[in-house]
């Protein structure tokens, strides 16, 4: 509660979530341009904005908006037009439950994790809509690939999150962060550690792999695969609708990193930072953790090529899901028997 009036609070929260999401997404776009450029012996954007090319994402967005908004003749116009908004809306909605500090959270749901997983898989529907409604064979193949891929990788993602929920004993994201901040006794020494160092290392690795696949980024970017399917389900999109997809992609990158940071790396909490300071320092701690994870994804992108669709399914069903199931068993065993 900020002002006490429900509608005013709601509007403030919605605006805040939108600003944070778009702002972070723009920073992620700029980071991708610059980081990849330096990894590839290039300078990257340089002129826009006068210094370091900082205005390049804005320039790109403006350029896209100026383009003609095309709807293919054979397309199912209503679904074609709605698809980007479904993708963006589901991505924005994930920011609602992510805590940036003990009190800076748009809505602290008791079933926060459940909400996250449910809402983030809505993206799949948007992508399928785009692929089907475009009336283009490349789009169709891209959409179907995306569908198959997102279903396959939703499972290991959910399973690793389930292991975290078992360890934390709560589904509220604030509760999960507090569970990581709670000190544990090891040989008379009282320390507090994030879940990553409390036996969730396997879970974290699976989560990151599955998250990269969920985001359709290299090495799992088959739904887009510009060398095979030109642009996959994005082939027919232009102008503002393409910008929406584009922004949604980077916002999803931020939100996935935020989820990973909250579940495994302690979220807004950090060791040796007093609890009273967390309310102010918390957002910076979380954003730093997000930045590290995003950098990791950019690094992967400039190192690896993409896998093939069957290899991707192979990885998900034969390796990630069994290991994730085993992970739950082990975590539950330690939770019940040892601690």
């Amino acid at each position: 509660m900020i002002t006490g009036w429900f509608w005013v609070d709601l509007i403030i929260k919605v605006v805040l979530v939108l600003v944070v999401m778009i702002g972070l997404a723009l920073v992620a776009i700029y980071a991708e341009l610059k980081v990849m450029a330096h990894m590839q012996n290039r300078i990257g954007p340089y002129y826009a904005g006068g210094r370091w090319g900082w205005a390049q994402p804005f320039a790109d967005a403006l350029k896209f908006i100026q383009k003609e908004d095309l709807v293919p003749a054979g397309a199912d116009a209503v679904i074609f037009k709605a698809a980007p908004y479904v993708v963006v809306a589901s991505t924005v909605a994930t920011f609602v439950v992510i805590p940036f500090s003990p009190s800076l959270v748009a809505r602290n749901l008791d079933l926060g994790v459940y909400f996250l997983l449910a809402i983030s898989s809505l993206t799949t529907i948007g992508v399928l809509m785009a692929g089907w409604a475009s009336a283009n064979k490349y789009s169709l193949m891209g959409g179907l690939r995306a569908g198959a891929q997102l279903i396959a990788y939703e499972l290991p993602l959910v399973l690793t999150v389930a292991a975290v929920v078992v360890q934390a004993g709560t589904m509220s994201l604030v509760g999960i962060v507090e569970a990581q901040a709670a000190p544990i006794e090891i040989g008379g020494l009282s320390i507090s550690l994030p879940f990553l160092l409390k036996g969730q290392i396997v879970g974290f690795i699976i989560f990151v792999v599955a998250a990269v696949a969920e985001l359709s980024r290299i090495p799992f970017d088959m739904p887009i695969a510009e060398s095979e399917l030109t642009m996959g389900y994005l082939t027919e999109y232009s102008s503002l609708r393409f910008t929406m997809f584009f922004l949604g992609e980077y916002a999803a990158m931020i939100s996935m990193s935020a989820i990973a940071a909250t579940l495994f790396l302690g979220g807004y909490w950090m060791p040796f930072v007093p609890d009273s300071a967390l309310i102010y320092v918390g957002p910076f701690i979380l954003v730093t953790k997000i930045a590290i994870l995003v950098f990791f994804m950019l690094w992967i992108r400039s190192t690896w090529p993409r896998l093939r669709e069957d290899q991707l399914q192979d990885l998900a069903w034969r390796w990630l899901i069994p290991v994730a199931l085993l992970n739950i068993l082990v975590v539950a065993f330690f939770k019940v028997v040892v601690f």
Partner: protein
Amino acid sequence: MSYQPPATGYEALMHRSEVAVSVELQTQDMTLNIGPQHPSTHGVLRLVANVDGERITGVEPVIGYMHRGYEKLAEVRTYAQMTALVNRIDWVSGFASEVPFIIAVEKLAGIEPPERAQWIRLILTELFRISSHLVFTSSYPLELGGVTPLFHALRERERVLELIEAMTGGRFHPNFNRVGGIKPAAGGGKTQKQVSMDIPGGWLEDVKAAMERVLGATDDSDTLVTGNELIKARTVGVGRIPADKAIEYGLSGPNLRASGVAYDLRKQEFHLPYDQVEFDVISGQDGDCYDRYWVRLQEIRESVKIVLQAIEKIPAGPLRAKAPRVLKVPKGQVYVRGENPKGEFGYYIISEGGQKPYRLKIRSTSFSNLSILPWVLKGALVPDLVAIMGSLDFVLGDVDR
């Protein structure tokens, strides 16, 4: 807003048949038109592919979008005028396709080019081979989705192109050969005429330095691409061409050698002094995409070896033999082939006497290399299509001529 099928005509018939098929729960193959404008067809190749889901059941290449009629053009041009055209057939290695033509003309006319010119031709051919293979090793990972190797290899290729430019004045289309030798190097003009009658000063030293950097680029490729697990997952065992099939379809160059046939025209026919340099013929084993990549990467290293030896061995002397200003070629015919970076590249010239050829047949490499596509793509997946097509390393200008 849903699709309304027309009531009569062909489309209505098609719609009814589609409904009937879907009622029986059978699926229909989809015809996927890849190209002529597509990111990975290297220009204007069109592939009409029948796909069952992601599996390709048949593919038919449609070529000719870039036909420029060089064979016909040759009939109305003098031999000297043709040198400007032949290096545009395979533009990634322009000089290498110039050399067999000019040697064929010299053989017909009975002109012996001086040795120094031959050695310079050899060095430039190898530089173009390095440049062409660097384009391949950089752009092939790009087709598999890896962006970074492109920039690392293209940076060193730029050094090679700068050397070529310093020598010939052009980066891609040198037009550097003359009947009887080579043209005086770039940087000419009235005041420098005496100086520019030979290769530019310090050029050979620059080449040596550049070769070091090229070797560095191949080492970069080794660490970034060759041992990369995902590259291996995408290429090992994909698009296998057994040796007998490769010979059957007339493959040549690295594509043939990757299948295990150690056949290199540089070891067979010595129009250029390849017999005086030492190098290995690299050949693969399985003939899959990975081998084709690996063979080309190793060939860059062999080319560097050849260039360094040639720099030591290059003799002094004139650059051009005495040839008549208006070249009249006697009656006769000749076939000269050379090892282009992409494979066997040959010219068959029939002369009825006079300044122009009666008929010119160009045996272009990529055309033959591409002919195996329908066979090798059958049963592959759509992502493999890109991997296989890229690994054959063809240039559309070379296919269509």
